[in-house]
């Protein structure tokens, strides 16, 4: 599975400044991504998933509103080692975006231009990155639309986004993201707005494309069913921090961080459908406000394994376990047994 190292993120931190107040949206995020791998980033709204991915794409606003620290190293497709993404000048970054790392957004209706045809939008992307005549770019667009399973691709070139269904729009977005054969694709909740039947088609498509091209995927979602289906590795985020990272099977079978455990338990089990298995497990309380994070472990006010005097005082570090997992919890060694 593990091919070449494509992306290495170390101690990534993002903070926003508004009206004098500073909010740490993301801190201390580190991970690696290899060729052909799918990393699922899981967490609730406000946990920092999207901010992390925007930081990787360098799409966040500039300082002083927004400060990005840490290091993001991305393998250069042309083969000359690793690029220092956070230090690249913007013109060079524009060449990296799309070519090396591309992104698919949640809502295809708002991320496509409503007054341009699908064909115009895809050929524009292609020609921006690859020197190509209009005619050839059009043929390439047809090939891409066909690749992502859009029927009658040549006719679709003249269609406007509103003429396509949600699933078709999302396919068109994926086609656009793939137009320069990026080695890393970030998919930010790409199926959340879609029906389950269409979601199944899109997941299938991503898996197929990944097998063909060996690209690595960062899949952002809050749907644990989707995670179980596509991920090789899972990174769970809470309140702007990575709280657990592990391969998908051990994570589902033995979550070490109480938050992960709670999330997994709060999903209704399909195999118990209709059995009325009693109340669902629910994590009490709400996600903390990033401007006023609780002291100690950010999850302690909602945690069922909370130890007074420890969890509300000491901020846990991200520990590495013997079997290559990472967990941020003061009490995790007690949960291993």
């Amino acid at each position: 599975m593990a091919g070449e190292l494509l992306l290495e993120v170390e101690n990534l931190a993002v903070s926003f400044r508004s009206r004098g107040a500073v909010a740490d949206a993301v801190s201390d995020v580190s991970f690696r991504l290899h060729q052909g791998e799918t990393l699922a980033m899981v967490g609730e709204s406000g946990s920092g998933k999207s901010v992390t991915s925007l930081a990787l794409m360098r799409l966040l606003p500039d300082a002083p509103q927004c400060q990005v620290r840490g290091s993001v190293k991305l393998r250069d497709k042309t083969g000359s080692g690793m690029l220092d993404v956070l230090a690249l000048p913007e013109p060079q970054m524009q060449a990296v975006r799309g070519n090396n790392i591309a992104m698919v957004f949640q809502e295809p209706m708002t991320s496509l231009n409503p007054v341009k045809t699908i064909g115009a939008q895809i050929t524009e992307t292609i020609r921006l990155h690859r020197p190509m005549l209009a005619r050839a770019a059009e043929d390439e667009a047809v090939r891409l639309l066909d690749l992502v399973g859009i029927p009658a691709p040549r006719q679709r070139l003249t269609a406007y986004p509103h003429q396509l269904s949600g699933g078709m729009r999302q396919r068109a977005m994926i086609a656009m993201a793939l137009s320069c054969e990026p080695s890393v694709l970030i998919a930010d909740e790409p199926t959340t707005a879609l029906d389950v039947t269409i979601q199944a088609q899109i997941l299938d498509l991503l898996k197929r494309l990944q097998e063909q091209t060996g690209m690595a995927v960062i899949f952002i979602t809050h749907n644990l069913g989707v995670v179980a289906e596509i991920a090789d590795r899972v990174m769970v985020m809470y309140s702007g921090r990575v709280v657990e990272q592990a391969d998908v099977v051990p994570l589902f079978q033995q979550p070490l961080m109480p938050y992960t455990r709670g999330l997994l338990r709060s999903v209704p089990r399909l195999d118990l459908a209709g059995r009325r298995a009693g109340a669902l497990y629910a994590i009490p309380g709400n996600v903390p406000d990033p401007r006023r994070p609780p002291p100690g472990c950010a999850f302690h006010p909602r945690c069922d394994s909370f130890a007074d005097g420890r969890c509300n005082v000491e901020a846990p570090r991200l520990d590495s376990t013997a079997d290559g997992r990472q967990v941020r919890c003061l009490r995790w060694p007690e949960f291993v047994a």
Partner: protein
Amino acid sequence: MTALVEIDSLQKHFPVGGGLFGRGKKQVRALDGVSLSIEKGEILSVVGESGSGKTTLGRTVLRLTDPTAGAIRFEGQDITSLSRRALRPFRQRMQLVFQDPFASLNPRQTVEQIVATPLAIHAGGSSATEKRERVADMLRLVGLQPHHADRYPHELSGGQRQRVGIARALILNPSFLVADEPVSALDVSIQAQVVNLLLELKEKLGLTILFIAHDLAVVGHISDRIAVMYLGRVVEVAETGTLFRSPRHPYTEALFSAAPIPDPTVRRSRVLLQGDIPSPIDPPSGCAFRTRCRHALPECATVVPPLRQVGPGHLSACIRDDIALQASIA
């Protein structure tokens, strides 16, 4: 069991396009002959892809839009063509919980004003202290604190806002609730809280709930029975366990097999549907699902298959009895 709500051949068509005098107008067949009965005290879920008519069904049953044809009976009484005035006593007994707790609460009103609005409309004359007490009771019932009454929606989290929406729906002691995707806008950890609340309230207050949703795991947990809709028609109805374990309609099979299972060690074969749901303006002839159905026969194009009994309490609208369908769970 007795039926609280009976829906009989309900149709709702929306005109689209057409010229100035409505010539050549087309119809969106949002509901195309839906018959269902909702038993007292049950949670009946309606599932289906977007565009299948779930939301229109909920709104038409509450008479928030007028049906094109068909009948709705509430506790045996036909309410299909009651005037607004005659409908008022019924309105109190049937309420709606909306999907988006951010859009469905007035940002300029306090929680107390929001929750008390139905009282002002239907039970005018009660004193301010009575109202305040009633609101406090309601907030406690849905797991909020009386001090939340003075807050504004933006001060509350998504889960708390949805609780406010539920409190508003319950303040007139309704017997029937339509919940239209009440948890799909919420975070996973908050979803479970609201699902538990709905189940608890159903027991405590003896509510009957029409639950509209697309998350099959939530539906499997919360419902007594499930109705599956496709292009404005009900294609299958059964008890929850039956539908998950032995579906009889090919659409149910495909829809349920598309739901991802939160267990990475389970790899099941999936019935992948091709393409999208067809346009309800020009639905396919005969069985509307035939264009995406892997079991379709030439006959499927000619007749609209009626819902017929295929087991105890189990109805399905498919002419093929001879096929073995895959269950979504063992």
